[in-house]
C-alpha cells in the first residue's frame, strides 16, 4: 500500500545544491585554486598493439615551465604493454597546458610493434592475432540456462531465428571530462576529483600509491555527469604521482581527445536469437548466442547481456550463451548499465519480427508474454518486490495513441512523401537490487533542524537531495529544515557506495532512513520526558513531535533538540533486517531484494526514403520509479534519459579505422550530440510509473539506468515506417539508405 508522505514526492522541492549551480559556485574539482597549480597533458600511444622498449623524457623536462614527468616506469596506472591507440604512456605537469602539450611532443618513445586486430568478427576467427589482454584467446564464455531449450523449441508452432548487431561503440562524453586536483602535505594526499565513487576512488588511490586510506583525503563535490565513466579514476593517480614529483598541486583536466581515447566506452554487442512460440503467441523457448566487443581491457561484460532473457519475458526454457571478445580498441566500461540498453535493442527487434510472424501487433505480443508483477523471479524463485513493466506498456500506448496509429509495416505515406511509423517497447531489469554495504549519518542541530552527510558524489541525479527527502520524511521535519551538510567527502561522510547500478536512492536511501530513525529514537527519549508519555507512544510530523492519537500534546523539534543530551547523531547502514519493513505475500524478501527496475518507450518517426533522414515526430519515455522520492530529480532523469535515447538512437558513434586502430572522431564536432536545434521538445513526454516497490525505502527503486533503456524503439518505428530493418545503431542516413538499397 502506498505511503502517505508529506515530503517525499512533492514537486515543489528543489535540488539542495541548485543555487550553487545556478550561480556557478558549485565546486567542480578543477575549480579548486591552490597557489602554483600545475597543469597536465598526456602522451599516448600511436600503435594499437606494441611493447615499449625505451622512453626518454629529458627533452620534455628540459622545456622551460615543465616541472614533472611521469611514465609507465613510475606511474602505477600506466604500462609498457600497449593494447590500443590512445593508451597513456606518460604525463607532463607544467605551468600551463600549452607548455605541457608542447612537452608531450618532446617525449621520445620507442615501440616494438605487435600484430593487432580491431574488428571483433576478425578477432574471433581462427589464427587471428592475439589482442594481448588474455593470455591465449580473444574470447571468454558466459552461460545461463533455464529449463530445456530443445524441449521448448519442439513445443513451438513457429520458430524464428534472427541476428542483430553490432550496436554502436561510443564514449560517454561527460561534459566535465576526467578531472582532479591533487597535492601532498607530507605523506598525506589531498584530492579534489570528479567521481561516481569517492570511497572506491580513495581505495584505488591508496592501493595504487601504497599509502593508508586515512592519508588519502578525497572530496568529490561537483561531478559533471558520470554515466558509468567515473567509477575508475586512473587520471587522479597520475595527478598524485606528478604532484609528489613536482612538490606542487597538480591539476589533471583531460582534453576532449584524451577523454575520448583514454576513458571508457560503451561496448558493441551482437546476437543471434532463436525464439519458439505457440500459434497463440506464447513464448516456449528463447535461445541466444551473444557477443560483446569488450575492446582492449576485456571486462567480461557479456554476462550483463543476459538481461534479455532474465527479467521481462515469461519463458520456462531459455539459454544464454555469451562470449566477450577483446579487440585492440580504447577500453570499455559501464554506460548507464553494464549492458542492458543495447541488449534490449537487439532483443526488441527479434520480438517484433516474431510478433509479425504470429500475426499479432508488437504491443499485443508483449502484453501476452510479459511477466506479471505477482510472478516470482524465473531463476531464483523469489518474489519480486514490484514490477511496473505492464503498466509502462499501457502508459506508453495511451500517451502515444498506439491503438489508432499502428499500421502494417510501410503502409503509411505522409503528405510530404515521407514514410511514417510507430513503435512501443518496455523491459524490466535488475537495477537497484544489489549494493555493497553502505552507511549514512544524520546530525540534528540544537535548533531543531537536521544536517545529513551523504557519502556519495553529486552526479546528475540529485541523489543527496533524495536522501534529504527520506530523512525529512522519517524525522517528521519539513523539507527546508533538512540540509545536505557535506557529500562525497571521505574524511567526513560515511561510505555511501558507488554511484552505479542505480542503487543510491534505494540502498543508501535505506541507510538514511535507518539513520533518521536512529536520530528520532534518541530525540524521542528526551521528548518522552517533556511530554510525559512513553517514547513508544510518540510520532513526528511536519516539524512536531506529539503523542499518538493526541496531537495537541506536542513539542516542536526545536524545543526537543535543545534539550537532548548532547547533539544527536543518527547512524544507519544497509541492509539491516528491520528495514526490510514490508514483505511480499508474507515472504521475507531477503537481502538484497529482488528489485525490478524498468523503462518503457514509444515513438513515432518520419523517414525520408530519398535522403535517409529519420525525424522523431513524438517520443514517450517512462521509468518505473516504484515511488518518486525527489520528484523533480526523477522527472529530470526521465526527461534526460529521453534526450540521451535520441542521442544513442540517431547520433552516438565513435569511429575507429580498423586498419590501424585510430579513433577518427575524438571530439564533439565529429561525434555529435543533439542540441536544441536537433530536438523538438514539444513532442516529448516523460512519464513516471509508480509501482510501489515493497523493498525500497518509501517504495522507491533504482531509476538511473532504466531511464535510457528504450532507444531501440526508434529502430522498431523505422521498420514500421519503411518495412526495412536497421540492425545496427545509430540510424545514420547512410545506414538508412543502405537498408533501403539506395546507397
Amino acid at each position, binding site marked *: 500500500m502506498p505511503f502517505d508522505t508529506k515530503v517525499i514526492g512533492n514537486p515543489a522541492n*528543489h*535540488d539542495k*545544491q*541548485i*543555487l*550553487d*549551480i*545556478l*550561480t*556557478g*559556485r*558549485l*565546486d*567542480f574539482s*578543477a*575549480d*579548486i*585554486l*591552490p*597557489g602554483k*597549480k600545475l597543469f597536465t597533458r598526456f602522451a599516448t600511444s600511436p600503435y594499437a598493439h606494441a611493447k615499449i622498449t625505451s622512453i626518454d623524457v629529458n627533452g620534455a623536462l628540459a622545456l622551460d615551465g615543465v616541472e614533472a614527468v611521469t611514465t609507465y616506469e613510475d606511474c602505477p596506472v600506466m604500462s609498457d604493454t600497449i593494447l590500443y591507440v590512445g593508451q597513456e604512456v606518460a604525463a607532463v605537469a607544467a605551468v*600551463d*597546458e*600549452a607548455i605541457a602539450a608542447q612537452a608531450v611532443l618532446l617525449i621520445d618513445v620507442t615501440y616494438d610493434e605487435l600484430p593487432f586486430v580491431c574488428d571483433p568478427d576478425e578477432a574471433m576467427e581462427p589464427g587471428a592475432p592475439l589482442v594481448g589482454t588474455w593470455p591465449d584467446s580473444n574470447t571468454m564464455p558466459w552461460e545461463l540456462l533455464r529449463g530445456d531449450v530443445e524441449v521448448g523449441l519442439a513445443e513451438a508452432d513457429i520458430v524464428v531465428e534472427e541476428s542483430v548487431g553490432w550496436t554502436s561503440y561510443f564514449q*560517454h*562524453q*561527460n*561534459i*566535465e571530462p576526467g578531472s582532479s586536483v591533487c597535492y601532498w602535505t607530507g605523506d598525506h594526499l589531498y584530492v579534489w576529483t570528479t567521481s561516481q565513487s569517492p570511497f572506491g576512488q580513495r581505495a584505488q588511490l591508496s592501493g595504487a600509491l601504497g599509502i593508508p586510506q586515512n592519508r588519502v583525503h578525497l572530496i568529490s*563535490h*561537483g*561531478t*559533471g*555527469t558520470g*554515466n558509468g565513466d567515473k567509477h575508475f579514476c586512473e587520471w587522479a593517480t597520475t595527478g598524485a604521482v606528478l604532484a609528489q614529483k613536482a612538490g606542487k598541486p597538480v591539476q589533471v*583536466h583531460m*582534453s*576532449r581527445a584524451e577523454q575520448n581515447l583514454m576513458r571508457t566506452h560503451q561496448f558493441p554487442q551482437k546476437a543471434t536469437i532463436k525464439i519458439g512460440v505457440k500459434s497463440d503467441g506464447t513464448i516456449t523457448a528463447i535461445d541466444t548466442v551473444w557477443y560483446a566487443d569488450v575492446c582492449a581491457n576485456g571486462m567480461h561484460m557479456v554476462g550483463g547481456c543476459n538481461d534479455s532473457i532474465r527479467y521481462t519475458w515469461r519463458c520456462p526454457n531459455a539459454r544464454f550463451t555469451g562470449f566477450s571478445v577483446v579487440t585492440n580498441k580504447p577500453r570499455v566500461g559501464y554506460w548507464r548499465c553494464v549492458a542492458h540498453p543495447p541488449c534490449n535493442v537487439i532483443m526488441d527487434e527479434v520480438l517484433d519480427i516474431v510478433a509479425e510472424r504470429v500475426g499479432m501487433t508488437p504491443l499485443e505480443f508483449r502484453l501476452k508474454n510479459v511477466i506479471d508483477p505477482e510472478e516470482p523471479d524465473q531463476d531464483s524463485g523469489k518474489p519480486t518486490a514490484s514490477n511496473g513493466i505492464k503498466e509502462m506498456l499501457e502508459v506508453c500506448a495511451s500517451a502515444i495513441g498506439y491503438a489508432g496509429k499502428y499500421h502494417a509495416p510501410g503502409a503509411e505515406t505522409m503528405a510530404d512523401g515521407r514514410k511514417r511509423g510507430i513503435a512501443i517497447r518496455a523491459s524490466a531489469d535488475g537495477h537497484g537490487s544489489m549494493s555493497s554495504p553502505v552507511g549514512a549519518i544524520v546530525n540534528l542541530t540544537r535548533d531543531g533542524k537536521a544536517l545529513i552527510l551523504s557519502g556519495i558524489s*553529486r*552526479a*546528475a541525479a*540529485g541523489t543527496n537531495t533524495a536522501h534529504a527527502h527520506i530523512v525529512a520524511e522519517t524525522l517528521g521535519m519539513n523539507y527546508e529544515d533538512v540540509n545536505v551538510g557535506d557529500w562525497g567527502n571521505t574524511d567526513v561522510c560515511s561510505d555511501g557506495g558507488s554511484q552505479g547500478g542505480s542503487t543510491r536512492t534505494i540502498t543508501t536511501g535505506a541507510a538514511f532512513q535507518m539513520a533518521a530513525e536512529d536520530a528520532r529514537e534518541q530525540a524521542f527519549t528526551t521528548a518522552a520526558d517533556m511530554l510525559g508519555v512513553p517514547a513508544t507512544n510518540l510520532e513526528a510530523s511536519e516539524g512536531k513531535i506529539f503523542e499518538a492519537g493526541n496531537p495537541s500534546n506536542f513539542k516542536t523539534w526545536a524545543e526537543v533538540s535543545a534539550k537532548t543530551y548532547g547533539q544527536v547523531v543518527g547512524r544507519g547502514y544497509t541492509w539491516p533486517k528491520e528495514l526490510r519493513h514490508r514483505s511480499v505475500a508474507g515472504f521475507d524478501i531477503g537481502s538484497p531484494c529482488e528489485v525490478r527496475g524498468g523503462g518503457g518507450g514509444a515513438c513515432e518517426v518520419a523517414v525520408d526514403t530519398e535522403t535517409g533522414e529519420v525525424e522523431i515526430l513524438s517520443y514517450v519515455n517512462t521509468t518505473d520509479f516504484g515511488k518518486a522520492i525527489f520528484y*523533480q530529480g526523477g522527472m*529530470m532523469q526521465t*526527461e*534526460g*534519459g*529521453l*534526450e*540521451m535515447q535520441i542521442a544513442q538512437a540517431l547520433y552516438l558513434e565513435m569511429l575507429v579505422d580498423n586498419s590501424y586502430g585510430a579513433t577518427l572522431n575524438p*571530439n*564533439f*564536432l565529429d561525434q555529435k*550530440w543533439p*542540441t*536544441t*536545434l536537433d*530536438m523538438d*521538445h514539444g513532442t*516529448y513526454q516523460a512519464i513516471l510509473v509508480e509501482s510501489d516497490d515493497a523493498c525500497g525505502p518509501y517504495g522507491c527503486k533504482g531509476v538511473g539506468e532504466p531511464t535510457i533503456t528504450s532507444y531501440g524503439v526508434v529502430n522498431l518505428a523505422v521498420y514500421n515506417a519503411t518495412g526495412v530493418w536497421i540492425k545496427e545503431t545509430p540510424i545514420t542516413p547512410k545506414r538508412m539508405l543502405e537498408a533501403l538499397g539506395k546507397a
Partner: protein
Amino acid sequence: MDKKKIPKKEAGEISRREFLRDAGLVVGGAAICSTVLLAACEEGEVTTETVTTTVTETVSKFVCPIDGMEFDTLAELQAHFAAAHPEEKVIPGLITLTVNERNYVLQVKPNWTLAFVLREKLGLVGTKIGCDRGSCGTCTVLVDGRAIYSCMMLAAEAEGTEITTVEGISDGITLHPIQQAFYDNDAIQCGFCTPGYIMAAKALLDKKASPTSDELREALSGHICICGTTKRMVEALL
C-alpha cells in the same frame, strides 16, 4: 520576468570553494577600480546598494618580461621598465581586462585563452571548460554583450572589451531573472553546462526580451547538455 527574491537562508551560504578561494587564491593582477555590490539585510528582506570604491586584492609578483626581475606592485615594474628598457614603448604581455565591471591589470602570455585567464588568474571559476576547442559551449561568457566561447578567444584579444561572467550577473543572494527562471523550473542536473547556457541566454534576452522558440533554440544550439536538461531550460526561458 521579474527579479525575484530568494530566501536569505538558502542564498547566504558560502560554498566551500569560495572559502578555499578566499584562503588560497593569488590574483595575477591588481583591481584598480571596481563597483561592488553591498548587501544589507533586515527582517529577511534582501536589498542591494551600489557604491564605487577602490579595491586592493592579493597581488602576485609583476615580472619584467625582458630581464625577469620581480616587483611587488605594477608601479614599481613600470618605473623599472621605463628606467631599464627605455627603448621599449610598452611592457609586453601587460593587459587590462574589464570583467564584471572591474578592471584587472595583469601579465599574460600570448597563447593564454580568455577561459584560462578568467579561471586560473582571476579565480572566476564559474566559467567551465568542457572541451577547450569551441565545441561544447560550457565556457561561454559575454564579450561586449555577445556570447563568446572564452576557450576560443585569447586573453590579449579581450583587452578593451566589457566581459561578463556568471559571477557578474548576480551577487549570489538575488538571482538574475534567468537564474530565477531556471530555479523555478528546476532546470539543472549536474550543473557543469549551466553557466554557459545562462550566459548564452542572457546574450539573447538582453537584445530581445521575448524571443520566439526558434530564436531561443538557435541561441542555445552552440551548447551541449549530456544530462538532457535542454527541454527544461528552453521552457524556463519562454
